[in-house]
Every structure is written in C-alpha cells, then in structure tokens.
C-alpha cells in the first residue's frame, strides 16, 4: 500500500449534493488528497490530509444515480466527488477504504489493550500530562510508540503525576463580602414613592449571619404568619425607620406592629451571647475596649448611623443603634467566615442551617465543671502577686555542655602518620626555627632586595599567565560556575539531555525487571536491551559529529551514560550466560568449557 496513489482526470468536485460540480483532477496518495480544478480561475482547490478522512460513502452501481464518492472529515466537512464511471469510483473508494483501515488498526490495537482497565478520566489525564510536558511526550513517543515499553509500564513509574491532579481540585472557600449589608441602597424611581430592594441569597445570608434575631424571627414567622415577601418588606421598613432617626415614629410603629417591633428592638440573641462570652473572659483582660459593641450597656455615647449625636429620650433608647455596634458586628461575622456550605436558594433552609450551627457551637462552648475549675485555677495563677507567695524551688536539670575540643580533637590518637623519631623531629624543628629567625634578622638588616624582581622573570610570568588564562577561557568559559552545557549548540544540548532522560527511563525499567522470573519480563528485558544498544550507537554517532574543540567535553559528558549502559549490558550478558548454563543442566558438549 505504501507509496501508491490514485489519480483521476475526469472528476468533478461538489461541495454539496445540489452543486453542479467543478471539473478537475483528483489525486489521492497515502498522505494527502489533492483536487485541482481544470479551470485555473476557479477557487475550489482542495487539499485534505488522508488521516482526517473519517468515513466515506458511495452511490451504488445498481441505482440510477451517477457515481459519487462522499468523504467526511473529522472536522465535519463533506466532500463529494463525481466520477465519470463506476470502476474509477470504485478504485478510489477502495484506496480510501484501505487507508482508513490502516489508520484505525494500530490505534485500535493500542487502545484496546490499555483501555480495559482505564476510565476515560484517566485517559484524559494522561493526554493532558503529555500535552503539557513536552519532555514526557517525547519519551512517550520514543518508547511506547516504538513498542519498547507498553503504556502501562510507562505510566507505572509515574503514578505520582497521575494521582496529584485530583487533589488539586478541592474548592477554595469563598469568604464574605466586607461591604456592609446595611449599606445597600434601594433603587427608586423618581416618580412614585416606591423603593425597590434587590435581595440576593448572598445578602440574605449576610443578614442572617449578622442579626440572629432576624433569623429567629424569620423561622418563627415565615411561612406561618406572613410570606417571605412581607417579612422582608417589614424588615426594610424597619431599616428605613432607623435611617430617618425619628425615634418617636419608630416607637409608635413598634407599638402597633409586633413583628416590626422585633426588628426595631436591639437584638436579644446577640445580647445573650455576648453576656455569656463576657462571663468566660479572663478577668485580667481589659474590657474597656469592648464597651462599644456590648448590647448590655447604655448608649449615651457613640455616633448614630448618619453622624449625629442627638440625645434621646430614655424610653426610646432601644430604638437606636450606633454605627460602632454595626461595624463591629459586621467585622466579627466577616472574620468568622462562611460557617455553612449551604448554597441554596431557599431562605428558610439557610436560616435553619445557621441556627443549627450556632446551637452546635454553643453546646460545644458550654463549660463543664472541670473546665470551669481549670479556668479558675488559671485565673488565680495569673492574678497572683509574686511578693506574697512562697519561694518556689523548681526542680533543676543540670546542663550538659560538651567540650567542643572533644569533637575536634578526639580522633587525634588515631592519626596514622609517617613515623619519625621524636627526638629527630625536635631537633629538626629547633633548627628550622633558628633558620627562620635568621632570615628575619637578615631582612631587617638589609631591607628589601634590590632589584625586587628581574625583568626577564617578570616577562615570563606575564606570558605564562596570559597563556593560562586564554586556554582556560577556551576550555571552561568565563565563569567557573558556568555549565559546559550552555556552550554547546542548542540542538546538541537538547540531544544530550534527551539521551540522559531516555537512558534513565530505560535503565529504570531494565533494573527493575531483574531477577527475571517470568517470560514476560524476559521479553521486556530483550526489548529494552535492543533499545539501549540503539541509544548507545546514537551516542557514539553524536560524539563523532560534534565539532573538534567541543569533542573532549562532550565525550566527558557522554562517558557516564555509556558506562551505565555498559554495566547494564554486562549484567544482561552474565545473566543470560547463567541461565543458559542452568538450562543446559549437566549436559556438557565435548570441548565446551
């Protein structure tokens, strides 16, 4: 099948069935399908890659229709070719069919063995990893497609890569908005006196989180006493009343409508919670700072929501809230974060969930007797006065500081040295010191030697240094830390690095298959060995092909790779020999040692 192609002169190309067709020349070969119209001015030239052809249909000879061949591509395009006669069409069709089959076969074979135990999700994951990591893709192409390793073996060592992705998918928790809910402004239409509030579940959640009394009221009243819409209308009416700072009106309306009163009064539930919290606070803590948001205090200070500082009649006191209280409450709720994960539209569910959460946390927080006792003890400890207490004798543990000299000098006794007679050494040393002192005296007397350095010597030194520096520069490069790899041309560098990774992969599989216990491992090792010999020869070829000035360094780089491969080959040969020796058993043909 390879290299064959089909050509046809009298073909008409139709883009759809109704199209009369443009006459032209069709050529199909293994890689590509080319249609060139006879009329050079027409623009229906077509080039399609054969692997994109998904399916083909043709009209039957028996029918009265003209001979058409209909090709569909993976991209969803349709091409219809009208032939002059049926035999032509058949040859074309057969050719296309053969190509299709060839394409599909290897894919099917590869896919069928490995998809037995894989889910689609894992396949997708593998494709994604291959796409992202080009190095991995290269390795995959080299080994799996040349049948050296199977898919499973390839991925077996990379379980970490496959498993990690799923962990990343855990959702990140969203926090609450820091904008205050009460800052929501309604939309007004200028003509009537109506205002419209837009309530989203987000806002409802925040209202319930900040004001437990509202939540409680919601649970109590809806749907028994009023609808949700009425509830919110009343709530916003209460808000409006607050904002008008008209406490007299607020008091009046509260007296009339008991539900409204709930919204206008200070939040009882919150007050109860804070009172409990206060009881549990450490007495040494300064509570002055907390007065701003404590519901149990009088409110004769603090600015109102709109900045005024009116003094209020005492009976209407409860209908006012200060900005500080609102801010603090809101901040506390935002910092606490989202305590429930319920994402539901139904307000009632949200309200109930929040109540449950609060109840649970309250139950946890309730102090048991033991905890109480412990707290009292702790308080008395902290509040104690040191002068009045008895002296405490803490149990002491002595420090053990090791002498660092032990560490440095402990092994002095083990030093092996060229033995010298101790006396001889003493004499040597004494003499040497004498010589040294003489030198110093001499230089003090005579001063610096003149001339300090002979010019010829100086010149020699300069030239040798220059030589050293220039040769070193050629070999190493300007920076001693610079890697030699960077000086290679890019293609060579890539090749070297790719060889490293592929050899690592091969060797990993090779060494893990020893000792050989099953025939499967045996074939695997055989295949690996062939691939390794292949790589070995490639490395040799690369060494030859590199420029002469880089050759030495490249061979230094390549040497450890070849050594590792050699070790593997040796092991393989030795093992093979051992096996054949074992399998041949006691038989010893003549002359065979």
């Amino acid at each position, binding site marked *: 099948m390879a290299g064959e192609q089909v050509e046809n002169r009298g073909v008409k190309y139709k883009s759809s069935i109704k199209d009369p067709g443009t006459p032209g020349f069709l050529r199909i070969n293994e890689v590509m399908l080319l249609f060139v119209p006879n009329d050079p001015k027409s623009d229906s030239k077509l080039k399609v890659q054969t692997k994109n052809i998904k399916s083909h249909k043709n009209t039957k000879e028996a029918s009265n229709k003209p001979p058409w061949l209909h090709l569909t591509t993976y991209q969803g395009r349709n091409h219809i070719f009208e032939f002059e006669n049926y035999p032509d069409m058949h040859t074309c069709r057969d050719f296309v069919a053969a190509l299709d089959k060839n394409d599909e076969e290897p894919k099917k074979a590869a896919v069928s063995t490995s998809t037995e135990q894989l889910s689609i999700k894992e396949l997708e994951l593998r494709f994604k990893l291959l796409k992202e990591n080009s190095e991995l893709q290269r390795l995959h192409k080299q080994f799996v497609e040349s049948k050296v390793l199977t898919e499973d073996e390839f991925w077996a060592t990379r379980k970490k890569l496959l498993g990690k992705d799923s962990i990343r998918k855990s959702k990140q928790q969203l926090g609450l908005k820091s904008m205050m809910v009460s800052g929501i402004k309604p939309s007004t239409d200028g003509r009537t006196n109506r205002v419209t509030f837009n309530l989203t579940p987000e806002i409802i959640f925040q209202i319930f989180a900040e004001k437990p009394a509202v939540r409680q009221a919601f649970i109590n009243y809806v749907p028994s006493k009023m609808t949700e819409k009425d509830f919110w209308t009343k709530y916003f009416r209460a808000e409006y009343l607050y904002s008008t700072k008209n406490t007299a009106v607020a008091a009046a309306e509260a007296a009339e409508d008991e539900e409204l009163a709930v919204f206008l009064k200070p939040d009882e539930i919150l007050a109860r919670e804070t009172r409990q919290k206060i009881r549990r606070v450490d007495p040494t803590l300064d509570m002055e700072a907390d007065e701003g948001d404590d519901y149990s205090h009088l409110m004769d200070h603090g600015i109102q929501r709109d900045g005024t500082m009116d003094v209020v009649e005492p009976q209407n006191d409860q209908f006012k809230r200060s900005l500080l209280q609102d801010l603090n409450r809101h901040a506390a709720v935002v910092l606490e974060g989202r305590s429930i994960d319920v994402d539901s539209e139904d307000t009632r569910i949200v309200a109930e969930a929040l109540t449950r959460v609060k109840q649970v946390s309250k139950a946890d927080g309730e102090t048991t007797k033991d905890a109480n006792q412990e707290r009292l003890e702790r308080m008395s400890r902290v509040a104690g006065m040191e002068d009045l207490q008895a002296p405490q004798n803490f149990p002491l543990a002595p420090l053990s500081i090791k002498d660092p000299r032990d*560490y*440095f000098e*402990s*092994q*002095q006794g*083990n*030093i*092996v*040295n*060229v*033995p*010298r007679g*101790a006396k001889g*050494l*003493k004499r*040597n*040393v*004494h*003499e*040497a*010191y004498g*010589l*040294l*002192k003489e*030198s*110093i*005296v*001499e*230089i*003090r*007397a*005579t*001063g*610096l*030697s*003149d001339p*300090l*350095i*002979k010019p010829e*010597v*100086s010149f*020699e*030194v*300069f030239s*040798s*240094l220059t030589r*050293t*520096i220039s040769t*070193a*520069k050629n*070999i*190493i490069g*300007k920076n*001693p830390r610079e890697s030699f790899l960077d000086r290679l041309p890019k293609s060579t560098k890539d090749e070297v690095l790719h060889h490293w990774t592929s050899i690592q992969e091969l060797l990993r599989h090779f060494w893990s298959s020893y*000792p050989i*216990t099953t025939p499967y491992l045996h074939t695997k090792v055989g295949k690996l060995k062939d691939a390794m010999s292949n790589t070995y020869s490639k490395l040799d070829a690369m060494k030859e092909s590199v420029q002469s000035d880089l050759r030495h360094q490249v061979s230094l780089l390549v040497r450890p790779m070849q050594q590792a491969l050699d070790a593997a080959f040796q092991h393989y040969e030795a093992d093979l020999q051992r096996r054949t020796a*074992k399998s041949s058993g006691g038989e010893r043909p003549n002359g065979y040692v």
Partner: protein
Amino acid sequence: MPSVASKQYSDDVSLLVLLLDTNPLFWSNTSITFSQFLSHVLAFLNAVLGLNQLNQVVVIATGYSSCDYIYDSSLTSNHGNFESRGTGMPPLFASLLKKLEDFVTKDEELSREEGHEDRTPSCLLSGSLSMALCYIQRVFRSGHIHPQPRILCLQGSPDGPEQYVAVMNSIFSAQRLMVPIDSCYIGVQNSAFLQQASYITGGVHHTPKQLDGLFQYLTTIFATDLHSRGFVQLPKPIGVDFRASCFCHKKTIDMGYICSVCLSIFCEHHKKCSTCGSVFGQSKLDEASSVSDKKRKAPHT
C-alpha cells in the same frame, strides 16, 4: 566628618587580610629563602596600600603551633618613634618584622612545650582563618561604611587533614559573610583545602610556578579589589580537588560512608556515628545480596 569620609569611599576600597605561612618545617627546605619571600610580600603590601588611600592591610602569621596578628595598617602606632636600625627597611614595616620575630620565638616555645606528637608538617590554617574572620566581623559591625574585605592565604605547607573540619567550618562562615578567600600556594603538593576554599567563596586560587617572580604573581592576580574583579579576567583552575578527610582517621578519601543525620564522613563501616551518636542499621548491600541469592535459587528447583 562622616560625610567627607563617605565621599571619599569609592567602590574599590579593600581590606586585605594576609595569612602568612611561617611554618619553619616548610621554610627549611624550599627553593626561595624566607627573606626573599618576605621582601616580595612586603613590596606587595606596599603596592596594595598605594592603590587607594583608604585601603587597609592586616597580616596574620600562621605558625606551626599558634597564630597571631602581626600587622594592622589602620593602627597609628605603626609610625611611632621606632628607630630603624638597619639601612634598608622602611619604617612602615619595621614594626611588622619586629612582631614577626617575636611571634616566631613564641611559636618555638609553644612547640617545644607541646611534646611533639606525630603530625603532618602543616601550618595552623584553621586558626588563622578563624582569626581573620573575627577581625572581618568586627569591621562589619563597625558601621555602614567599611572597606570590602577579602582574605589572601599565602601558604606552602601541605594540608593537615586533622584540621579538615575546622577549616571547612571557617570556609562556610566566610561564604556566609561573602568574603572571598584567595589562595596562593607555593608548596610542592597540591592543597585541597585552599582549592576548595577559593572555589566555594568565589576567590582566586593560583599556584605560581616561578617563585622568584612571586611579586609579579601577587600584583597581577591578587592585588585587584573585589569591584574590579568583575572586569578583569583572573586565572582559574581547571578542576577542583573536592576530596574530604574521613572523621575517624583523618585520611583523605574520595569514597566513603556518610551518616545520614549529621553528614559526617567515615572511611569504613561503623555501627554508630561518633559525632551525633545515631545508630546505623544493617547495610543495604548485605541485605540485597542475601535476598537476591534466595531469589535466584527459587527457579532452579
């Protein structure tokens, strides 16, 4: 007047700490005499001081049993009323030589007291490195404006492997302080410590071939300050000898055992690490060989 001083301070002010090898065992058999060597070195110091008005030089003598500060150019007592006896010596270095002589006498007394265990004829490099680093640390803490310090190690004695740990510790402290250690080795064998020191701290290592041209080597290679080194190409060694000494026998080894807890190096298998006390398990090699033996027997039956 701090402002004037800061104006005068340019990038290339340097503080050179010179570690001078005064090991008598080395100097008793070299091609160059100690006095010739000293004249090269003193001329070099003069040259360094002449490069910049604010340069400073400190000389530490590395003896056989002790080390000491010999000369500090920033002290004003150098130029004091010292009668220079001879003809040739500039008064700048007269005090240096005097102190050197005193130091050698003291060192001799110490080595006499010490009782002469068998020791490689090495100088006390670890001691002088530590002293140099202490001085440099003091300079760092003296204020914002200070010269850029570097250490130049002029040595001819071979390495003492018993000092491996101490020397490596000093090298790492120098690396931390970002102080390069240059080294000029004038001895016969190769010094692994000095090569490693220069490599790790980013300094220059060179082994001059011609000792009578020592002054030329010193001024060409080691006189450049740290700022100018970015523009000047200095000779670099082709390779570095990274061998370590084992902790048990102080031999130089290139393959050995390492404790996984404290990274101490041993040349032979131990049951317990002598530095950190951790107990080692059975070696993996023994286990693996026994297992593979068993496995190979199985298919045989």
